């Protein structure tokens, strides 16, 4: 479980953009995984199965709460400034020189903001492809989407990211 704790939490956090909610949903994911371990089919990758459950839990939550237009500044459900700050994504880049760190933080923040502007299904595809290193086929299996749809989503997501990041890429 430790192995998947951060990847699963990160995927959910980037989808729902609320730390407390993401933690509840990650908890729900692992409880479903562990209680339903008997239904796991070994012909599929175990990580695909876990991420499928995590993605479904997060997307279901978005559908229930209509959270698909979200802000890096914090959860749209936050009602106070403190709550906004508490729910904002924390971006850190330890181990770099001060200048590198500032630049990396700026780029990291810009990328997080750009990802936050993507449709949730694009966000999941981009995270699984670039952060988890899944193949297109594995993403299709995980998200239960046709392979062609996954390729289209990733291509469109990258196009949107290029557009959103144009100002920092000059």
């Amino acid at each position, binding site marked *: 479980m430790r192995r998947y*704790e951060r990847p699963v939490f990160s995927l959910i956090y980037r989808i729902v953009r609320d730390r407390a909610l993401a933690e509840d949903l990650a908890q729900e994911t692992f409880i479903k995984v562990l209680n339903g371990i008997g239904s796991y089919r070994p012909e599929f990758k175990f990580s695909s199965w876990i991420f499928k459950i995590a993605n479904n839990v997060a997307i279901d939550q978005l559908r229930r709460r209509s959270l698909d237009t979200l802000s890096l500044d914090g959860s749209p459900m936050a009602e106070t400034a403190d709550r906004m700050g508490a729910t904002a994504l924390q971006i850190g880049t330890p181990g770099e020189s001060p200048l590198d760190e500032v630049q990396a933080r700026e780029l990291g923040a810009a990328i997080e903001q750009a990802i936050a502007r993507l449709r949730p299904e694009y966000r999941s595809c981009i995270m699984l492809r*670039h952060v988890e290193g899944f193949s297109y086929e594995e993403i299709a299996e995980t998200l239960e989407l046709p392979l062609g749809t996954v390729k289209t989503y990733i291509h469109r997501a990258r*196009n949107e990211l290029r557009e959103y990041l144009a100002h920092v890429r000059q």
Partner: protein
Amino acid sequence: MTNHLTTEELELWAEGLLPATRTMHLTECTLCRAEADRERTLFLSLSQLTRFAPTAGFADRVMKQVRIPTRSGEFQS
């Protein structure tokens, strides 16, 4: 000079999947080379995104709610 690389070809290049015949274009075109470098930066930045951690005690909180099957086929928390 051969045709400029398309967006799709730049993505393939960044993923290491562009055929060598098209990759050769990058050696002769500074415009495409600059685009390719930007593409690689985007891919690199995405792969280095922070993996956020849940709060301490997360695993313990999960395990408290997991039902563990016993030998008799029943479940215990």
